């Protein structure tokens, strides 16, 4: 009797996980990169529940997608530019059916039809942003901080925070030496590694889960931060300033892509359309502080958001700015090697 009951439970258990899943949208996104309200409203409007999982780096996202390649786990992911290019070339993406999404024309033409994805066959821009300096003016005394090179200053020993992002950290190292942040030259990358190694004793922590936290918690005073995080932090800690470094800010773009084996591409397309609505894009930009590429949405933004230099930089801010571009797999390997060495060196 007991054995039957147990067997029954087992069967039920195994059956409960069968492939007959109800319609859901499996969204894989950066952490702190989508207001809960947007997900709730999408479910309300379309009746499709959203299963929301997060990652903190392109590498982690890519590795997980490759791991789950055949099992069609995710319907949408949000890689940065150079990973869109990489994934497209490796045939990991499903083409996006433009006829199924509305609102594409609202997007800033400067950010569409880029080299990484000609004609946006595989990606739809979501948000763009910058990575710059965070300075806690309450704790930083003396000379103002306005360059990446300032991070190497002795007075910041043990108080620096870096994002846990391979390319961004090396971007800083390269710029400080006068090289391009998109360098593919192994000599330059090595030089950047050596320069960054000198910074390591000052680095208190790496954080890409929520880069504003170490500053808010008082663990670090100065370092790298994403502009959206800085905007969100300012509400809680007004002394945290977002500074555009002299050598040039890092700019990037994140886009929606649909993995090739997505189980629910219909829902994916619906979600993209939903986000492209100007009202929703404006909401997102206001909530999390990053810049929306949606021009119609920008018109709808309240003044204090549209004029917030951290979210929407002026032309002066963007002098010397460098957009993250695709650097090819070979160069990525070189970076990966030095990144591991940097993180592992104690």
């Amino acid at each position, binding site marked *: 009797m007991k054995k039957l009951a147990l067997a029954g439970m087992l069967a039920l258990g195994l059956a409960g996980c069968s492939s007959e899943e109800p319609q859901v949208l499996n969204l894989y996104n950066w952490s702190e990169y989508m207001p809960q309200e947007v997900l709730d409203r999408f479910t309300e409007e379309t009746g499709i529940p959203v299963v929301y999982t997060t990652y903190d780096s392109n590498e982690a996202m890519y590795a997980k997608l490759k791991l789950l390649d055949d099992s069609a786990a995710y319907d949408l992911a949000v890689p940065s530019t150079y990973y869109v290019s990489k994934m497209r070339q490796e045939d990991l993406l499903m083409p996006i059916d433009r006829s199924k999404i509305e609102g594409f024309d609202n997007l800033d033409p400067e950010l569409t039809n880029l080299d990484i994805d000609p004609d946006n066959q595989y990606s739809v821009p979501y948000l763009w942003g910058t990575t710059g300096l965070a300075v806690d003016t309450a704790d930083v005394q003396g000379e103002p901080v306005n360059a990446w090179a300032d991070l190497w200053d002795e007075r910041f020993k*043990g108080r620096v925070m870096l994002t846990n992002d391979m390319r961004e950290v090396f971007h800083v190292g390269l710029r400080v030496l006068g090289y391009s942040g998109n360098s593919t030259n192994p000599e330059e990358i090595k030089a950047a590694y050596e320069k960054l190694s000198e910074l390591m004793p000052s680095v208190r922590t790496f954080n890409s889960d929520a880069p504003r936290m170490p500053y808010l*918690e008082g663990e670090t005073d100065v370092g790298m931060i994403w502009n959206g995080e800085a905007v969100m932090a300012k509400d809680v800690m007004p002394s945290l300033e977002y500074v555009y470094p002299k050598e040039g800010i890092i700019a990037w773009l994140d886009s929606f892509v649909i993995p090739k084996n997505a189980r629910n591409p219909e829902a994916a397309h619906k979600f993209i359309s939903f986000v492209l609505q100007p009202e929703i894009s404006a909401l997102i930009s206001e909530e999390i502080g990053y810049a929306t590429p949606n021009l119609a949405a920008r018109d709808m933004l309240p003044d204090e958001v549209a004029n917030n230099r951290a979210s929407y930089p002026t032309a002066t801010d963007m002098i010397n700015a460098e957009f993250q571009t695709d650097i090819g797999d070979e160069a990525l390997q070189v970076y990966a090697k030095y990144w591991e060495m940097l993180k592992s060196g104690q």
Partner: protein
Amino acid sequence: MHSAMQQPFKTAVLILVWGWLLFLVLAPNLLVVGASVMTRDPATFLSLPLNLDAYRQLFAPLYLDVFLHSLYMAAMTTLACLLIGYPFAWALSKVAKQRQLVLIFLLIVPFWTNSLVRTYALKLILATNGLLNSALMSIGLIDEPLQLLYTEGAVIIGLVYLLLPFMILPLYSVFEDLKQELLLASHDLGAGRLSTFLHVIVPLTLPGVLAGVMLVLLPAMGLFFVPDILGGSRNLLVGNVIKNQFLDARNWPFGAAASIVLTITMAFLMFAHRLSKRRLGEEGA
């Protein structure tokens, strides 16, 4: 008297048990050994030219450093657990029997709570704006908050907090078995306290110590979430390296090799434990 009727049940049970273990224990471990000598492949994770590259990479100065640092932190954790746990187990074994059960219960309760959440609670305590600093500053012991979080010390504290019961329980068990007569005999033979301790108690409790060390040292090298939460993504353990190699860098041979090294460490410790028990059996009262 095993009639034909009894055989099907026995056979079924044996098939189930063997099947499960062979498929889910033996095979996977062999796969890991195999993976460690294969070559990394960006597309399919592993590919054929067999070589010892992964091990060579592991023992190159950079990763050897990581391994040694991780071993150092694990060793410090184990030492701390031992220093705290040894007297604790001794004191516990001396408490009145009825109370012992309650005390052990109280020891286990924290262990039965979610380890992630407990580690997070430690973060609240160790943070610059956290409770420890607030408390110390309010009673005037320090002027500036101590920077405890995101350091090697924080990771060790976290590991000790999670693993202490694993050291205490085996120690308690050997202390329980410690025959009072031996201690009395030693005293009767004129041995002083210290001498009794060194020559009677320590050797007799050694198997417990080694069991505790085994149960603490290895997890202390593998609990990757502790450095993630308390170490600021620095002060990495071997477990972090393995996780990064498998899940981020997708360098499976390397991750597998690191894992094999951990396993060998475990085998070594088990061997030492066996040896100590056997020697105890030979010298035992």
